[in-house]
């Protein structure tokens, strides 16, 4: 006779221990691993030793002169200390350099405030507009007793930040409009958007900067001039908009059709559907490629060197031309690179934090 056993009480047992090979085993387990480990460690230690030698032991510290740097074999940190103001603020008048410093702090503060998605509302947009207007007014001067400083004298970190904020801040809404137009049902809008995007993507940024610098003034009525920094800003914005548009179009395409159907079935208009249902989802899906494009655009601002503007990188290059110092390229570029790295890596970590935050709701 068959008996059926029904168990109702099955306590769960702990999982069996996973015995993984220890570090020592993996590094020195076999002859080839041992040799590889020794060689790699040796090279690393040698490189580290040389670097410490150069950057710390034989370095020339702040306070010394250019002549000391020429004699020494190590890093010339004294140069950085001496030229810090020129690298960070370009040829901005020495006594007024608190103004670009304040602008950098203001932009940083606005970025920090805007980080949390809960702050992504209309009043933050007003905050940004006010902050940017105020920053430009402060840099320009000519009011409330501030000495006027023409844009040709602006330079360094504030210029990089202003151009990056303008290119991304104005480029993003423009890019969204271009992407929507390209995917829309109006044939004329689709045609124009496609032409604009493909034309801009087909050109190098340098040529766009040249065209903006040379062509824009010609297109304006006689007598009207357009500021050179503004010209570069326009070129960078238009360039960003085209690339961001394509990233967002990818997001729009990946949205299931059912979302639009449900929105329309509820009676939402096209604009309500786009604003409330489509764009929030599409943008969230493409946070990673958007960050990529943003990081590239921030570094692209260094190309304004070509049209005679001074951003962070070209201010550094200008500082290197001082004949009293032995052109310490490595130290200067390391310093500038570390600033770029902080900005770009910060953006990268932020985007990962954003992605995790948005994933939480969609977890099953």
């Amino acid at each position, binding site marked *: 006779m068959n008996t059926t056993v029904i168990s109702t009480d099955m306590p769960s047992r702990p999982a069996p221990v996973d015995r993984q090979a220890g570090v020592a085993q993996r590094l020195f387990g076999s002859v080839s691993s041992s040799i590889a480990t020794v060689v790699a460690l040796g090279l690393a230690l040698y490189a580290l030793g040389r670097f410490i030698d150069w950057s710390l032991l034989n370095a020339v510290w702040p306070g010394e002169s250019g002549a000391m740097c020429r004699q020494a074999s190590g890093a010339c940190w004294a140069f950085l200390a001496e030229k810090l103001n020129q690298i960070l603020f370009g040829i901005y008048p020495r006594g007024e350099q608190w103004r670009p410093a304040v602008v950098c702090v203001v932009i940083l503060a606005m970025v920090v405030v805007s980080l949390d998605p809960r702050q992504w509302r209309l009043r933050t947009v007003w905050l940004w507009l006010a902050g940017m207007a105020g920053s430009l007014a402060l840099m320009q001067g000519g009011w409330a007793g501030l000495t006027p400083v023409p844009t040709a004298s602006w330079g360094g970190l504030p210029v990089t930040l202003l151009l990056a904020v303008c290119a991304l801040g104005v480029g993003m809404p423009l890019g969204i409009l271009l992407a929507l137009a390209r995917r829309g049902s109006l044939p004329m809008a689709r045609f124009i958007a496609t032409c604009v995007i493909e034309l801009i993507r087909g050109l190098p940024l340098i040529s766009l900067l040249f065209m903006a610098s040379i062509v824009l003034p010609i297109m304006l009525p006689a007598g009207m001039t357009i500021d050179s920094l503004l010209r570069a800003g326009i070129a960078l914005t238009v360039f960003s908009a085209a690339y961001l548009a394509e990233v967002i179009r990818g997001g729009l395409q990946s949205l299931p059709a059912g979302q639009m159907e449900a929105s329309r079935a509820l009676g*939402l208009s096209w604009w309500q559907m786009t604003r*409330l249902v489509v764009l929030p*989802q599409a943008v969230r899906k493409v946070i990673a490629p958007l960050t990529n494009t943003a990081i590239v655009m921030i570094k692209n601002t260094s190309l304004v060197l070509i049209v005679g503007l001074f951003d962070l990188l070209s201010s550094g290059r200008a500082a290197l031309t001082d004949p009293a110092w032995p052109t310490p390229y490595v130290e200067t570029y390391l310093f500038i690179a570390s600033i770029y790295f902080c900005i770009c890596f910060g953006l990268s970590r932020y985007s990962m934090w954003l992605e995790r935050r948005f994933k939480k709701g*969609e977890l099953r």
Partner: protein
Amino acid sequence: MAVSISGMSKWYGDFQVLHDIDLQVAVGERLVICGPSGSGKSTMIRCINRLERHQEGRIVVNGVELADDLRAIDEVRADAGMVFQHFNLFPHLTVLENCILAPMHVKRMARPQAAELALQYLARVRILDQADKYPGQLSGGQQQRAAIARSLCMQPRIMLFDEPTSALDPEMVKEVLDTMTSLADDGMTMLCVTHEMGFARSVADRVVFMDGGRILESAAPDAFFDRPRHERTRAFLERILH
């Protein structure tokens, strides 16, 4: 008449998917539409709220004729709620936010009133405790009930169901069908495309059989299931009811 379709035909390119559909649905009537896949049942129901455009014939919903006038279309859509096979909840919003979105933006209701209305309907479909969760955190049955509540929040006069239980695990089908039954008991005009014949028998006023883009038979449930007249209806019922 809640819905009046006369002589309606639809083509996808050169392929005619609906042939001369004539259908009248009275206010408060519960209609179940069944048929083999590809018979055009979903297409027909999607023409009623203009998710698909018909090329010939007339469709009049709640007294408003469906043509190319956008205002009329939005009016019809606000008054005819639709529940989809794949729920189509908005994943970036909580269940409550899903429900208040349309009343706030289409009917311009203030947020507190819309929320109160939404909570009422969420309680009605028995997922009040899930109001602050995201759709991704709910089971299939809960998601579909949330979708039903979302459509009900617009207080439509007609509810359209496009195979609402086809994508659900069997143990969750009952909870959704119970919700739909209670809706029907409250006098809602319902057009339901479904394969759930038990539901059709117990709830429907009329069962319509479609095949090849045509309505072949339309009868009360008893007559439909016990004395099907068309041979294709009989063949279909044999397959479905084993």
